């Protein structure tokens, strides 16, 4: 009846595991109680969970990302605390538990923090920037969101029922195979990734079609904003790279469930092919994450320097070049696997080449700032912090691209320092810059600047304290993923790193306070014009938050910075002569239902509850068919209603119009 699931699965074996479970369950209960108390369930259901509006889907993605950032950070600070005291088997975590923590930290940060954050920002802003009313496939968009949420929920549930994988975020066989890992942990990891990976593939396709087919008249490819360009390239990478990890994890699942031998040396399998397939996805993945962040930095730097972006064309070509080159370097993640010198040399050289277009971009941003009148908004500070710090990470990356050097540093904390040095300033700072930049667009009031700056400085200083010591430790030979060690000279470095994590904690606390303070003072920072930062591109020409249809009349574009141009010519904020009715996709519960049953399906496979697998598969199938054959998937907003909403907007603009 319940497959492998018994009462044993509850984490009562250790106080720390039980505590983690209690916090998870308690947090969920607390949210439920608050929602009930506010009587917000109905509102949540009709206005958010069933929404297919790209702006709301974007916001929900970002909420998911911020929650998972908290969870991922708790894992991080637990590891830092453990390693700070782990000399000679000290510390408070048993090895089994420590292994689960680094595995869940890496998995969560990449798949359930960074991916949803990026997808959310693209969803929220890209359709506005290209002057369209929604993405090409609004319902598919909702399905992608709920599949990502289902994957995240599987990782969270593993805290309470059963255990998570101990095989790291990469899940290499043979260790992740059934022989060495008979428990449910690896299965949780596989199904979380498979389910959310399907969502990401579909998001990628959705964005590509939207950008290629839905641009406003006059917006040629070379008039698209840098963010839209990077979103396009990242989406192409998503559509092409994600199938590789889906195949790799799918084959691993078959090995584990059906007794197959794709990755076991017995019976002719080859575990090295797993590493190969995983990184065919894995390297493009890092560019999927960082390209949109590059786009955000480009927008932020131009806006707050009050200057046109320097070298737009070179930036576009650099982005496209990176996108293609990112498919030619994957072997640098397994130089030590035993390939011949020629193979290693080839991938080492391609890796060094990819640094060139990235370097071009740094000059684009620097020269945009040069002689600009810079406004040090928190988003601008994230960008400056990024440029300085990212260059250091880039240098260590080129160092690691030399195979003989990689042989020394591979699997040490030098590597851990390198990729955090790319991914925290590059990816996370970028998304946070975007979050603070576009927050007023999404909600109609600004985020508090002071707490934003406090958060920035804590993150920046905390980052240096937490990761610079790891470079040195790596050079001294400390391997990554160590639960304990016996070299007393390592401990001081690890204590500094732990201090760094505490400073980052202050940064996260500042972000939470920032949200509270900004909501409290929302009347003071209200954004009535929709254009708080003297913006340059189309998203700032709508109200904040934008109406459901984004643009009452689809704009015609004649410049790379159409809104700035319109403001200069005095054509901005002009009332159109008349309005036309607008078709809008109607809300549907099909997305949440699909995501909910995808979660049940994953859970049931993990625990081998086969009847439940069949039931949820059938429900999902029926949901798709039902929604696809629904002829009332859209409704019409009459011209009169559009006029009423637009009149309200012009009244708000009031004196300015």
């Amino acid at each position, binding site marked *: 009846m319940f497959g492998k699931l018994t009462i044993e699965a509850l984490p009562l074996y250790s106080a720390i595991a039980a505590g983690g479970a209690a916090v998870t369950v308690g947090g969920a209960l607390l949210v439920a109680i608050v929602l009930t108390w506010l009587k917000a369930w109905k509102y949540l259901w009709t206005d958010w969970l069933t929404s297919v509006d790209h702006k709301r889907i974007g916001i929900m993605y970002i909420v998911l990302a911020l929650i998972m950032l908290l969870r991922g950070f708790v894992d991080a600070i637990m590891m830092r605390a453990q390693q700070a005291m782990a000399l000679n088997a000290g510390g408070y975590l048993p090895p089994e538990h420590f292994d689960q923590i680094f595995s869940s930290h890496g998995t969560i940060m990449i798949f359930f923090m960074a991916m949803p954050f990026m997808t959310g920002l693209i969803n929220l802003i890209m359709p506005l920037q290209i002057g369209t009313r929604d993405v090409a496939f609004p319902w598919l968009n909702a399905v992608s969101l709920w599949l990502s949420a289902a994957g995240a929920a599987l990782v969270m549930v593993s805290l309470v029922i059963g255990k998570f994988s101990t095989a790291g975020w990469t899940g290499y066989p043979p260790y992740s195979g059934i022989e060495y890992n008979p428990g449910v942990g690896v299965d949780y990891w596989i199904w979380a990734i498979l389910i959310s990976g399907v969502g990401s593939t579909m998001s990628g396709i959705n964005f590509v079609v939207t950008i*290629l087919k839905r641009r406003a008249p006059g917006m040629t490819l070379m008039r698209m904003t840098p963010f839209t360009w990077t979103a396009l390239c990242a989406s192409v990478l998503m559509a*092409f790279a994600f199938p*590789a990890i889906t195949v790799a994890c799918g084959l691993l699942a078959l090995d584990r469930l059906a007794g197959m031998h794709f990755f076991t040396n017995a019976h002719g399998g*080859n575990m*090295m*092919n797993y590493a*190969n*397939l995983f990184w*065919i996805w894995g390297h493009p993945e890092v560019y999927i994450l960082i390209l949109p962040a590059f786009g955000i930095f480009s927008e932020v730097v131009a806006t707050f320097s009050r200057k046109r972006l320097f070298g737009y064309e070179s930036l576009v070509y650099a982005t496209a070049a990176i996108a293609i080159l990112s*498919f*030619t370097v*994957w*072997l640098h993640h397994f130089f030590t*696997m*035993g*390939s*011949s010198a*020629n*193979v290693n040399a080839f991938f080492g050289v391609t890796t060094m080449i990819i640094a060139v277009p990235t370097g071009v971009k740094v000059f684009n941003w620097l020269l945009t700032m040069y002689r600009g009148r810079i406004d040090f908004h928190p988003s601008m500070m994230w960008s400056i912090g990024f440029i300085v710090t990212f260059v250091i990470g880039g240098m260590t990356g080129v160092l690691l691209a030399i195979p003989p050097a990689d042989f020394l540093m591979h699997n040490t904390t030098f590597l851990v320092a390198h990729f955090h040095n790319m991914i925290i300033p590059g990816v996370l700072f970028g998304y946070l810059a975007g979050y603070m930049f576009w927050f007023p667009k999404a909600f109609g009031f600004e985020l508090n600047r002071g707490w934003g700056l406090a958060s920035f400085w804590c993150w920046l200083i905390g980052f240096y304290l937490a990761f610079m010591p790891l470079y040195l430790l790596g050079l001294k030979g400390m391997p990554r993923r160590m639960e304990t060690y016996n070299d007393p000279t390592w401990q001081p470095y690890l204590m500094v790193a732990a201090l760094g994590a505490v400073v980052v904690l202050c940064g996260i606390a500042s972000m939470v306070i920032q949200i509270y303070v900004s909501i409290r003072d929302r009347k003071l920072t209200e954004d009535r014009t929709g254009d708080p930062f003297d913006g340059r591109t189309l998203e700032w020409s709508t109200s904040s938050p934008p109406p459901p249809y984004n643009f009452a009349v689809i704009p015609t574009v004649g410049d790379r910075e159409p809104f700035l141009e319109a403001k200069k010519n005095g054509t901005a904020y002009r009332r159109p002569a008349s309005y036309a009715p607008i078709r809008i996709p109607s809300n549907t519960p099909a997305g949440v239902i699909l995501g909910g049953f995808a979660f049940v399906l994953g859970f049931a496979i993990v625990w081998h509850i086969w009847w439940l697998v069949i039931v949820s598969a059938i429900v999902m199938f029926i949901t798709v068919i039902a929604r696809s054959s629904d002829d009332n998937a859209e409704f019409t907003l009459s011209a009169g209603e559009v006029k009423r909403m637009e009149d309200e907007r012009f009244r708000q603009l009031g004196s300015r119009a």
Partner: protein
Amino acid sequence: MEQHGLRNYLIGFVLAVVLSVIPFWLVATHALPPQRTLLIIGIAAVLQVLVHLRFFLHLNFTTTPKENLLALVFTALLIFIMVGGSFWIMFDLHQRMMT
């Protein structure tokens, strides 16, 4: 629409079935030595892709817009990199394991 008529779909369907049955049959019956079985599976897979593009996605060189063909070329390039690269890497490893 007529040119996408039922006949076309049926031809595509029959070809797709034939191209799937052959590899399954070869593997199930061990009719040929492994090396040759692999080769035939590979060829059948590539033909299968072409059948889908031609009969189900209606791609051809006269009526399909140029951008779509360009996208196809881009796809072919990426698949070449991924599959070709994997072959290179895995056969290189294989060789080093043998000697």
